[in-house]
Structure formats: structure tokens, C-alpha cells
């Protein structure tokens, strides 16, 4: 598995939209611009919506990897598109 080493990690597989993105936003608040966050999220609505919301708010997704169980691990750089 080629996972980028992130500065922080969050699991949002236990919540549904829109709480998924709210939790990601809160986690990003603890980071400085340029730092990275690994997000573990479910297939379906979360993977369809969270990357778009991150882009809309100026963050940059660096990688997305599908796990054996069908969930995803996404690494995002805070403010990477600002």
C-alpha cells in the first residue's frame, strides 16, 4: 500500500453526510497550512462529496486509495489550493 505519511488522521466511517465533512473541517482546524490529514471514509456519499467539499474550501487532495474492505483513505493538504 502506497500511503503518504500524514501529520494527522481521522476516521469518518462512523458518521453520515454532512457530519462527515464537518468532522474533517474540525480536524483541519488543528493543522497549519501545508500540513496533511489522512481521512478514512466510506464508499458512496462520503467519497462522492468530501473531496469536492475539500476542493471548494481550498484544500488539496494528494492521494486516494481504495482499501480491501471497499472504504477509502484520502490524504489532503490543508490550504493546498489557496
Amino acid at each position, binding site marked *: 500500500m502506497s500511503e503518504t505519511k500524514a501529520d494527522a488522521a481521522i476516521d469518518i466511517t462512523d458518521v453520515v453526510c454532512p457530519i462527515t465533512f464537518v468532522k474533517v473541517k474540525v480536524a483541519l482546524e488543528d493543522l497549519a497550512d501545508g500540513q496533511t490529514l489522512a481521512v478514512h471514509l466510506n464508499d458512496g456519499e462520503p467519497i462522492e462529496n468530501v*473531496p*469536492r467539499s475539500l476542493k471548494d474550501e481550498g484544500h*488539496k487532495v494528494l*492521494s*486516494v*486509495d*481504495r482499501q480491501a474492505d471497499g472504504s477509502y483513505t484520502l490524504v489532503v493538504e490543508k490550504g493546498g489550493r489557496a
Partner: protein
Amino acid sequence: MAVDYKELKKGGFMRQKQKDCFSMRLKSVGGHFTAQQLGTVQQVAEQYGKGYVHLTSRQGIEIPYIRLQDIDEVKAALKRGGVEVGVCGPRVRTITACQGAATCPSGLIDTVKLAREFDRRYGGRELPHKFKFGFTGCHNNCLKAEENDLGVKGGVQPKWQAADCMYCGVCEAVCPEQAIRVDKQARSLAFDQAACVYCGKCIKSCPTDAWTGEHGFVISFGGLYGNRIAIGRHFLPIVFDEAKVYDIVDVTLKFFEENAKPSERFAHCLDRVGWDVFEKKVEEVL
């Protein structure tokens, strides 16, 4: 004098069970009413109806319990307040729309503006049977385009630029149709254009804007959601030119006029006459 119910129905007056009472349909385009129009509606419902309105399944307003003898007075009161009466019967019916690109973050086309233009061009046009147009801004399909005789859905045809791509894999993950395959190790990407549904999720998610695209119109034909249920069919590629959309609608309405029996819905007409015959006619104007 005998009451001409057919003429009243044409003018949006729906006969009630109760003697000489009508549910009065108001004109709605894309479900937008101004606050001022609503004030007029309130006044009429209180003065001439029973103080309530009914919101219809197609974004319209009806004011029930309007009495036959008040009809002319009610029409005049509505007109003064900027409200028009709707239509019913065998003609182009209320044109529906979601809020679209003007306000919705997901919207790809300006549905409300389109609905108004369609109303200007086709509103109330006499046809063999009712004919419904609906506009939805994107693939999420909040307005259910395929329920309509002719539905228009906003879409975007994605284009990928290798130079800007960092092969993160987000587009593959967000694509609902598995039309994109990213090989991170080999730094390559495969896009199956035929599987694309023009939803634009790849474009909206791409962190480097390697995916871009042109917005257009995805048109469906022959939808029904009444006694019989039929899902509007797609046989055209996405259309980018708005003028071309009107060419397609013109040929569609002409086909319906020339081929449908009285009181035959568009879907039934297509099933009887042949979808292939219709498809050929539409393809002539592409």
C-alpha cells in the same frame, strides 16, 4: 346559458365535486413566485376561496372553492396583482425546474432561465394531449427530468489533461459509473467516454484541475408518471448549443402533432409509431 367546462379547464379552472366550484390553477414557471404574487394569492384565497391553497405536484398553486359567478372578478383581481391563470388539457403544461446553476452549487445549467424561455416559446401550445417539460440542473436530478415528456438535465462532458494530473486517484473514487481507471504506479489514466453520465464529479473533485469540461444539455424523451409509468429515454449525446435544443424541441413537438392520435401521450405515440422513426427525425436537426 350552459357552462363550457372544457373552456374553463383550458383556462386553468378545474371543476370540483362541489356544484359550481372550481379549483383555480395559477401559472407557474419553474416554481418561482414573487412575494408580491403570493400576497395577491393570499388575498384571493381569503376573499374568494376558503382561505387556503393547494401546492400541486408540478410546482403550481391552486386556489380551491372559487365559485362560478366570481370567475371574471377573480381573474381581474389576480391580473392586477401580477398573477396569471394556468392551463390544463391537451397542451404544453406547467414547465417545472429546480433552482439550477443560478443558486445551487451542483447546478450546471440555468434551469429557471431555460424554463422561462421555454414558456415564452411553447407555453400553452395546443397539442394532441398534455405535454410536460421539466428542467433539472445536474445528474442529481432533483427535478426528475425523465418523468417528463421532454426532460432537460444539465451535464458536463469531462476532458482530461495529462500534464496537470498527479494521479491521486480521486476521480476514479468519485465516479459513480466506474468510467475512470487510474494506475498510480504506471502514472496512466483510462477514461471510458461511453460510460460517462456527464455528472461532473471528476471535475468538481480534481485537486489540480486536470479534469475540465464544457457544460451542456442532456435530453430525455417520452417520460410518463401517471396511469402508466415510463422513464424518459436518452438516445442523444449531450448537446452544447442552446439553439440546438430548440431545434430538437421544435422537431419533437411537430412529430407529436403529426403522429399522435387525439388524447395519446407522447410515450404511447412513440411506442406505436416507432422510436426509430422519431430518432431519425431528431438526428436530422443535430
